[in-house]
């Protein structure tokens, strides 16, 4: 017989150490004492840690955590969302009498204006100043979105009450093809 085959056979027929008598009882005791980690969702595990009844204090803790975490978050979000969405409609009458209506939507932060009416008034005035060419324009940066290049400018307007306001506006860069 091939020597290596014989070695293989010898290894296969190796005697098996028998388990000591007390081992099975020891392992059985573990099984009885253990709560087997059955397939339960994270929520189930949290609310019913023992797998049976829902723990009341855990529900209360979860509610407290929710209030403690979500309340400041929602307050912050509310603050972040303090914006005015203002819509303008400007009409232009061409030489042949055609009226063109242009609608502009502007979103501004509430922090700079006392109320929506003031924001609307200021924006209306800046529109008129822009039309009249009464502004200071500073180039900020070039941006590219979806393959379209734009330039960001800061427009500064001096309002009739002497207040200086500035708005960042982007303008599409005209390619050679557009021209």
């Amino acid at each position, binding site marked *: 017989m091939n020597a290596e085959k014989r070695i293989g056979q010898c290894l296969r027929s190796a005697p098996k150490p028998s388990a000591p008598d007390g081992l099975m009882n020891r392992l059985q005791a*573990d099984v009885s004492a253990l709560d087997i980690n059955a397939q*339960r969702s994270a929520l189930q595990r949290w609310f019913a840690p023992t797998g049976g009844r829902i723990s009341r204090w855990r529900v209360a803790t979860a509610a407290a955590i929710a209030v403690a975490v979500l309340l400041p978050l929602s307050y912050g979000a509310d603050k972040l969302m303090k914006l005015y969405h203002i819509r303008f409609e400007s009409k232009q009458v061409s030489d042949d009498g055609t009226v063109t209506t242009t609608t502009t939507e502007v979103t501004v932060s509430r922090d700079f204006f006392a109320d929506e009416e003031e924001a609307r008034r200021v924006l209306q005035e800046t529109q008129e100043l822009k039309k009249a060419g009464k502004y200071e324009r500073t180039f900020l940066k070039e941006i590219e979105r979806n393959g379209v290049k734009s330039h960001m400018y800061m427009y500064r307007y001096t309002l009739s009450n002497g207040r200086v306001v500035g708005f960042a506006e982007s303008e599409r860069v005209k390619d050679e093809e557009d021209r």
Partner: protein
Amino acid sequence: MSQVKKLLKRARKADTNAASQLLTVYYEDIYSYLRRLCGSQTDAEDLTQQTFLKVWSSLDRFKGRSRFSTWLYRIAYNCYIDWRRKNPGNVQSNTDQWWHECTDNNPGPVEGFARHQLSRQLYEAVDRLDEDKKQTVHLHYYQGLSLRETAKVLGVATSTVKYRLREVLRILRIRIDAEANEFDLRQTIPVAKGEPI
């Protein structure tokens, strides 16, 4: 569905009776695997217990991609490796001792002596192999796992297992041959020239 799969399904739903039945099926194999490796009955018992504790606590993570026994051996293997790492000085090779204990209970005929001797030499030689080769022999030959199962337990490719086994057989053959030659030499009675026997 096989009996083991049914038991597993029930055990996953925290059925302790099913878990006990699974235990009955597998605990002896796991114990013998660990007993051969760590050489001490107490350590092997502790490691077997540790293995099953890990099994019960992570039963929901067993996805059934391999056989349950393979997964079990993998946990036992990891437990042994962790234990070995934590107790580098405790690992002692008592193969000889358990081999004697096992064989002395079933004394064979006189003609079986040579085979008995060879087996003893082999088991001792296996214990002297490096850890990877030793594990491969233990799982494939001693525990009877297939090449694929052995590979899964050890986390290597089946081809690696095949290569290791080929190497093991080559090494063992060389060692056995060397020991046999030594044995033959010891049996030779030195006779002085011209001296009457």
